[in-house]
């Protein structure tokens, strides 16, 4: 197996190019935007974008679409919600607890289904999500069911800035972890599995083990983001585990471009922020969303990242 040339600091920086630019411009947004609402939109876009990025770790690399994504997100959220409100644990510990819980559920789902092909994982994770959602709805004395569980905010201050930078740090952390793994030898194995499981197996890659790693990590990150969401939004209902949430995440990932990691993040800002702004349109907004997913799937499955890559190739050609 050829060693993926990586991890030398210089290669790493040159790989980071565009994403680094995005992150820097993101970090400076609150400095010159005074409007709290726009700051809020940016945060929500980043939250959804980060989720799309996490789901890309399975969809784009090991070719498994986690159709129960929202459940792992929601489990992380409820874990920290219950721990902080009932046992008075600090929200930061809650973040880690949520991450661990979702990771555990990911391991469980993976153990059951990873030896089977991708479809089983998707459907199994989906049924897990349906069951979890039903359970949170039924177990009223723990989760308060449809009444909604109130979660204390992470920071005391009125301003959105502390939350904003916390999420930014989480996003950068997730991005670096994913990118490091993908650039390493393990990442090569991931891509081999995503392209053709049989060939991968023939060249000595154990698909089950690698898929487990990717899936578990992705679930754990989903839990981490969910835990952040819980403290940011302040109230949790079983809706958060619904299939609709999963669909939105997967759609963002697809629109952004599968297998690019940063594509989902970009789509998060370009799609979610305007959509959040158009919230009053309700159904029309979701129709556009569904229509966008269909259009991208039918006409340009490579998504935004594919478009940008193509433009990059074109520019390089012109230079020569």
């Amino acid at each position, binding site marked *: 197996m050829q060693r993926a040339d990586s991890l030398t600091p210089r290669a790493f920086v040159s790989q980071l190019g565009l994403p680094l630019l995005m992150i820097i411009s993101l970090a400076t947004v609150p400095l010159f935007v005074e409007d709290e609402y726009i700051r809020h939109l940016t945060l929500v876009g980043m939250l959804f974008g980060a989720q799309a990025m996490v789901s890309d770790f399975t969809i784009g690399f090991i070719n498994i679409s986690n159709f129960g994504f929202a459940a792992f997100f929601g489990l992380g959220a409820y874990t920290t919600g219950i721990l902080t409100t009932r046992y008075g644990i600090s929200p930061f510990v809650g973040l880690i607890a949520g991450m661990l819980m979702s990771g555990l559920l990911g391991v469980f789902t993976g153990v059951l289904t990873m030896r089977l092909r991708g479809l*089983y994982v998707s459907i199994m994770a989906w*049924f897990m999500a*349906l069951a979890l*959602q039903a359970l949170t709805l*039924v177990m009223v004395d723990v989760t308060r069911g449809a009444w909604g569980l109130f979660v204390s905010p992470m920071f005391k201050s009125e301003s959105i800035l502390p939350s904003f930078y916390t999420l930014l740090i989480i996003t950068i952390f997730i991005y670096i972890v994913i990118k490091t793994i993908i650039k390493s030898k393990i990442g090569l194995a991931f891509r081999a599995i995503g392209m053709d499981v049989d060939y991968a197996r023939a060249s000595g890659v154990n698909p089950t083990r690698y898929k487990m790693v990717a899936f578990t990590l992705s679930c754990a990150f989903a839990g981490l983001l969910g835990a952040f969401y819980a403290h940011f939004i302040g109230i949790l209902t079983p809706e958060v585990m619904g299939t*609709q949430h999963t669909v939105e995440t997967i759609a963002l990932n697809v629109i952004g471009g599968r297998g690019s990691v940063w594509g989902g993040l970009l789509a998060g800002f370009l799609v979610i922020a305007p959509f959040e702004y158009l919230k009053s349109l309700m*159904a029309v907004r979701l129709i556009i969303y*569904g229509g966008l997913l269909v259009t991208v799937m039918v006409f340009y*499955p490579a998504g935004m990242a594919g478009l940008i890559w193509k433009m990059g190739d074109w520019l390089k050609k012109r230079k020569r």
Partner: protein
Amino acid sequence: MDLSLIWNTILVGLLRGGLYSLIAIGLSILLGVMSIISMVNGELYMIGAYIAYFAFAYFGLNPLVAILMAGIGTFLLGVLIEKGTFRYMRRRAGEDWYLNSFLLTVGLSFFLKNVAVLLFKPTYRGIRWYWEGTVSVFGSVGISIDRLVALLIAMVSITTLQLFLRNTNIGRAIRAVSQDERGAMLAGINIGNIFTLSFAIACMMGGIAGASMLSITPAFPYMGTAPNNYAWLVVMLAGLGNVSGAIVGGLIVGMVEAFSFQFIGEGWPAVISAVILIIVLVVKPSGIFGSAVKGVWER
């Protein structure tokens, strides 16, 4: 425990089971013939219910005509969807077909659901009955004629489809494509048309199910979600792409749902069905009845 309550629950389970089989057969056909993991069939169920509602309640047509119209309407919609989207995608997709087609159905489902919200508003549109009255069976238990007819329609549609697949030339062509796409093409079968037909038939099954259940579950934009989930459970239990297994699987799921709803409580059917699915995946991943169609996870 009350005996008539148990009988009633069994009847509800039978009816639900027949309905889930109907949708699950559509899913099985899509999976077997076109290798599509479909999430859109629940929405066809919803559209079928709306067509039947408007035909029956607004235009006062005969119930059977209304149900037939729902079947034809969803069939045509299926043709439109296949020709408009999947046909284009097949040219581009290549290797990523499974994931791409799956995501496409997800998008379609999202789209159709919210178009329904926009057009019909999220209000329930139900009818009290297609045919008034009840028949008493098993002595004391009364069962409404509607439920009996719905069960009958489910059985008739499934049998007709089976006969069609088994005994007509087109049916044989569909089965040939599901067994070996390239071989079927070499034998002179027009694959594109078979795909369109299979997709439309799968949609029609959902539409008929929705229409015949109208007096029991009113038309509502989000009504398709739960049947789609349960139909997928049926498909996973019966074995992927296994059409005849879907009938028994449907009955099992219908019974489980009816009994857990009746005796444990609301919300629990989803939990219990997930547990059953876990057990089946651990014990026999190919499903209770196994499956001759391999496509999706062997490639």
